[in-house]
């Protein structure tokens, strides 16, 4: 019996984290399942940011506690509950998936704590369900595909086929492209997410429809699988493939290993690229590559930004993180060195920023990466900001 109690005590001691730091930040991401490659990138970036700020925000020491959403909205909500209720973190950030964020947001906001999305930007949070304690440090889901629709217009594409997964972010991506694309959408498939990994039926439909271009959105490891099948179906030479959030430093090494060189030159749109020219980004990308031996993804860039974003607010209230009004005011200013260069926070607490054309290229050492091109949408605000009536 005593042994059992000791064992239980040992387990509890392992689980509970020492309350040594002044500021505790909860970070929810995916640490298991195949999508854990994204979570790893985000955690690595957060750890690098903590190193760069010497685990300090002003006079306060800071600690990040990670929660695993297991790529599942319900599990993500539970992880958030553990962080908020058990670990009593001061604020919560992270969140790759829009559906996880939507399920988890009430937990944080009802506890009267700040919630900062480092990736997911679902439309409700930007519009009707906007909240004074919710901030987004990445983008609203519609914006990047809106830029892509504009890019398609500039490229003179008349007919487009759309393939995307059937969940909140997928629907937002498609809505975004349709919002700005002036040509005709000749076909659209929303596929089962996340289980569907074979697109034979959709690829046959694309072939039959014969569009001038295909738009697709498959984040994480699903992207390379789709492109590979797109190539095997003989489409990649005939129908150019445009995408968002699919070719990044997570998927490109897989493409390179598999020798799918038809993705070189492939175009997308994004707010950031590893070769963007500013001090913060140069330092971030160089140190990230030094420490982890690979390029950071945009997920990593946003996660890195989120720590500096929080730091700017903590310093503005002199470490008194309970001063929510002061924290909010500082976060609204967004005065911190961002890896994307300067941007403003909109009234709905989503960034107003540039979106650039981005291409897949080979760097000087032969690694495949992405490179930033001309601005497609300048100082762009998401289309839902007007629906947001925020008090305070």
């Amino acid at each position, binding site marked *: 019996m005593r042994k059992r109690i000791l064992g239980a005590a040992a387990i509890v001691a392992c689980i509970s984290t020492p309350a040594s730091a002044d500021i505790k930040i909860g970070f929810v991401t995916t640490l298991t399942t195949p999508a854990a490659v994204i979570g790893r990138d985000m955690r690595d970036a957060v750890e690098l940011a903590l190193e760069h700020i010497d685990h300090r925000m002003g006079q306060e020491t800071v600690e990040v506690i990670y929660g695993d959403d297991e790529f599942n909205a319900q599990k993500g909500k539970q992880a958030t509950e553990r962080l908020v209720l058990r670990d009593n973190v001061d604020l919560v950030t992270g969140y790759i998936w829009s559906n996880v964020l939507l399920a988890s947001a009430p937990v944080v906001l009802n506890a009267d704590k700040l919630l900062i999305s480092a990736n997911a930007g679902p439309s409700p949070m930007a519009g009707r369900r906007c909240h004074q304690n919710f901030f987004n440090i990445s983008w609203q889901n519609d914006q990047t595909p809106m830029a892509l629709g504009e890019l398609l217009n500039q490229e003179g594409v008349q007919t487009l086929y759309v393939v995307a997964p059937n969940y909140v972010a997928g629907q937002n991506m498609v809505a975004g492209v349709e919002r700005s694309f002036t040509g005709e959408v000749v076909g659209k498939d929303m596929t089962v997410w996340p289980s569907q990994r074979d697109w*034979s039926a959709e690829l*046959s439909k694309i072939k039959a429809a014969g569009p001038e271009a295909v738009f697709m959105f498959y984040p994480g*490891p699903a992207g390379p*699988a789709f492109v590979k099948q797109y190539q*095997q*179906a003989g489409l990649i030479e005939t129908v150019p493939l445009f995408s968002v959030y699919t070719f990044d430093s*997570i998927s490109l090494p*897989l493409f390179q290993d598999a*020798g799918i060189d038809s993705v070189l030159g492939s175009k997308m749109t994004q707010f950031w690229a590893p070769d963007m020219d500013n001090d913060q980004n140069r330092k971030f990308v160089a140190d990230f590559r030094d420490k982890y031996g690979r390029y950071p993804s945009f997920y990593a860039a946003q996660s890195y930004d989120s720590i500096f974003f929080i730091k700017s607010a903590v310093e503005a209230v002199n470490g008194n993180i309970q001063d929510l009004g002061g924290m909010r005011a500082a976060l609204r200013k967004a005065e911190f060195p961002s890896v994307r260069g300067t941007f403003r926070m909109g009234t709905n607490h989503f960034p107003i920023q540039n979106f650039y054309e981005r291409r897949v290229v080979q760097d000087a050492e032969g690694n495949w990466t992405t490179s930033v091109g001309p601005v497609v949408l300048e100082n762009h605000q998401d289309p839902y900001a007007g629906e947001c009536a925020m008090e305070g």
Partner: protein
Amino acid sequence: MDYVLLVEQLLNGFQLGIILFLMAAGLTLVFGIMDLVNLAHGSLFMIGAFVGGTLALATDSFVLGAVLMVPAMFVIGILLETVALRTLYRRSHLDQVLATFGLILFFNEATRLIWGPEGLVIPLPNFLEGTVALGAGITYPVYRVVIIGVGLLVALGLYLLVAKTRFGMLVRAGASNRTMAGALGVNIPVLFTLVFGIGAVLAGLAGLIITPITQAATGMGEDVLILAFVVIVIGGIGSVRGAFIAAVLTGVIDTMGRSFLDLLLLLVLPANAAESAGPALASMLIYILMAGILFFRPQGLFPPRGATAIQ
């Protein structure tokens, strides 16, 4: 609707059916003969992909990797049966579900530790890349044709094994009435182990053969496993022939639903509703089919002779 698309979608459905058949054949034998609910069958699918993929990368040949995978999976299957599953035969189905679910977690974490979270990508040899013209304007990826061919060969081989050999006779006897077969002097434990080994090879083959299309990832077996259970329930538990027909039926209905259901719905619903209802309804189709078949034929379409619906 033009016929090229229709034929291509039929081929797509058939190819999905082949994968499901490879999974379901082992599952239906294990369930039918040993009365063991083996949720870890999906893990064998995943292990086949990772082990076969690693062998393919090591030997620099996809074909050689696939050939070497067969004895490797046979050994893994036999080890799994003798070490873990043998003790479960006398337990209730609930115990079996719990124990084999534990095995799923174990194997998922083990593959993540060994191969990392990013999974495994297997490149195809050049002669399997690209498309082939099948005549009448139909072009189809070479590799998917190969999958269909391999699946048909395996189905034929299994048919000959089960219908024409002494071993097959014992397997059929075991599926019909385990106790009676044992009483007549059939060495049931050895038969079980061999059947499980064959099931492991088939599941591993299914996993490896689909990997150049979908990539190997931890947990890749679970979704296929659910479909495979649907297949064996439709086909009749213990029947390889039933598994084949039900697998093709399931594959074709699933693919056809994904391809054309939204177009059909457009005729009766506004565009927005059809777009969101289409995929949702399409993914339910096979379960509706299963419910219908269970209602009219609870023992499945082709139950083994003499077997009762619920053992």
